[in-house]
């Protein structure tokens, strides 16, 4: 319908041929494309990633003197839990809030990309970060603090770190679902992050009294730390650790449910 106008007449000067529709891309192709882009983005933001890994490493190195008193698994599990906090509450949450504000998700959603591929790719990048951070903490612990775990301990510790990471990712999802402004998301996630560190880490060391010490065990920090620690030394896994695992799964389900229910792809309209 390439046309010229004369008064109210629309004169068709060339017959239009509708381009043939293209075959749909496979979900694998879509997911791979998204994942490649998300990994590249993560790599370009590597300074932030380094900071996420640096703090747990500093914990491992600076707590070396405590190994004899509290045990190597205690130190490694605290460091890993701290790193998981940072990945879920700082890295993931803020990147989702920023990209939503910039309408990056809406641009992706008008392509034939199912919603699960968009979010699945983001979560896969965080999974990579969790594995990387946990592995680095374990390597640094072995190399500099001479903390040696069994092969089962390393593998189970890594698996529990992934399970624990899911709590913080789900919590981050709930925060970014509830709050639309990226600055408020950033402030809120920082606040929760600091609260978890202060109450969780210092509470567990008995610095904040018995009540806090007992309560912390049932917080997302305490349960995650407990299952990671228990998995690193399987012989110390007790019914209390199993309870912590169940509570961890419960937290994940509740936060994920709220995060999915509240989440909006756009802050506009």
């Amino acid at each position: 319908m390439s046309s010229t106008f004369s008064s109210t007449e629309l004169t068709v000067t060339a017959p239009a041929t509708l381009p043939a529709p293209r075959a749909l891309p496979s979900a694998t192709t879509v997911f791979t494309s998204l994942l490649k882009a998300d990994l590249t983005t993560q790599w370009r933001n590597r300074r932030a990633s380094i900071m996420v890994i640096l703090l747990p490493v500093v914990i491992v190195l600076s707590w070396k003197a405590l190994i004899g008193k509290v045990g190597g698994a205690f130190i490694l599990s605290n460091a890993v839990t701290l790193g998981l906090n940072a990945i879920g509450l700082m890295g993931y949450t803020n990147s989702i809030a920023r990209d939503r504000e910039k309408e990056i998700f809406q641009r992706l959603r008008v392509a034939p990309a199912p919603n699960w591929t968009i979010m699945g790719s983001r979560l896969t990048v965080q999974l990579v970060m969790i594995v990387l951070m946990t592995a680095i903490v374990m390597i640094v612990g072995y190399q500099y603090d001479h903390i040696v775990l069994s092969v089962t301990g390393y593998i189970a510790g890594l698996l529990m770190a992934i399970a624990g990471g899911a709590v913080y990712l789900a919590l981050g999802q709930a925060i970014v679902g509830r709050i639309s402004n990226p600055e408020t998301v950033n402030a809120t996630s920082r606040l929760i992050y600091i609260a978890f560190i202060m109450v969780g880490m210092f509470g567990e060391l008995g610095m904040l009294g018995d009540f806090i010490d007992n309560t912390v065990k049932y917080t997302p920090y305490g349960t995650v730390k407990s299952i990671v620690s228990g998995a690193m030394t399987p012989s110390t896994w007790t019914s209390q650790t199993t309870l912590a695992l169940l509570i961890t799964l419960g937290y994940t389900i509740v936060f994920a449910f709220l995060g999915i229910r509240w989440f909006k792809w756009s802050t506009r309209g």
Partner: protein
Amino acid sequence: MNKSHDQPVLRVENLDIYYGKFHAVQRVSFEVQPGEIFGLLGPNGAGKTSTLSAAEGLIKPSAGSVRVAGYDIRRQPIYARACMGVQLQATSFQPELTVGEIITLYAGLYGVILTRDRLAAILKDIKLEEQVGKRFGQLSGGQQQRISLVIATIHDPQLVLMDEPTTGLDPQSRRQLWERMEAMRDKGHGILLTTHSMEEAEAVCDRIAIIDHGKIITIDTPQAIVDNNRERPEVIRASRKGRITLEDVFIGLTGADVRA
């Protein structure tokens, strides 16, 4: 997936959109044919973006239907989206990615195999071959729009949706974009364009719809809209240069008050 021949590339029927109690779009219906540039004009808050968002499948209408190349956007969203290309108002691409990476990403999402040579040819065509390694955020507004248009059409879609594509562009970039739109139309693509620019609507649109308060006031060719409304007193009052223009008709029909 072979539904789209011999039918409109976009059919919007009796579309109703509510935001809470606010009735933003009221029984809007129109069609975009293959090889047609269709303009949607209206003041701020008239319902243009809501209509476009419903066509993109980003918002769920309260009633009515949207079909892209025969596919229902609600029931078959992936198929419908595979048949359309979208140029959004915002520069909504990951700022960390380079031009080449962004084009490769979207080629993958549409299932287009993009070789290095093909990418170079695309960038050469829009005179951005030197910018392949540059991050999207470092490009000028005109360059970003060219990339955005390339991505919207990389899969040769039947329908292209453009939300105020020339906003912020210099005259040269705007003219260049119009030429690209006309070239797409000549190839048989249907284009739905929202714009505030009457000059743009007159220059490139085959038909336009003027929408206000969520309702379509009129649909016709730009010339026919001028001719059919030139005698109306409110249009004559809006006239500024002694002859009736599309802008005069637009102001006459939608009112001179500035919208929030």
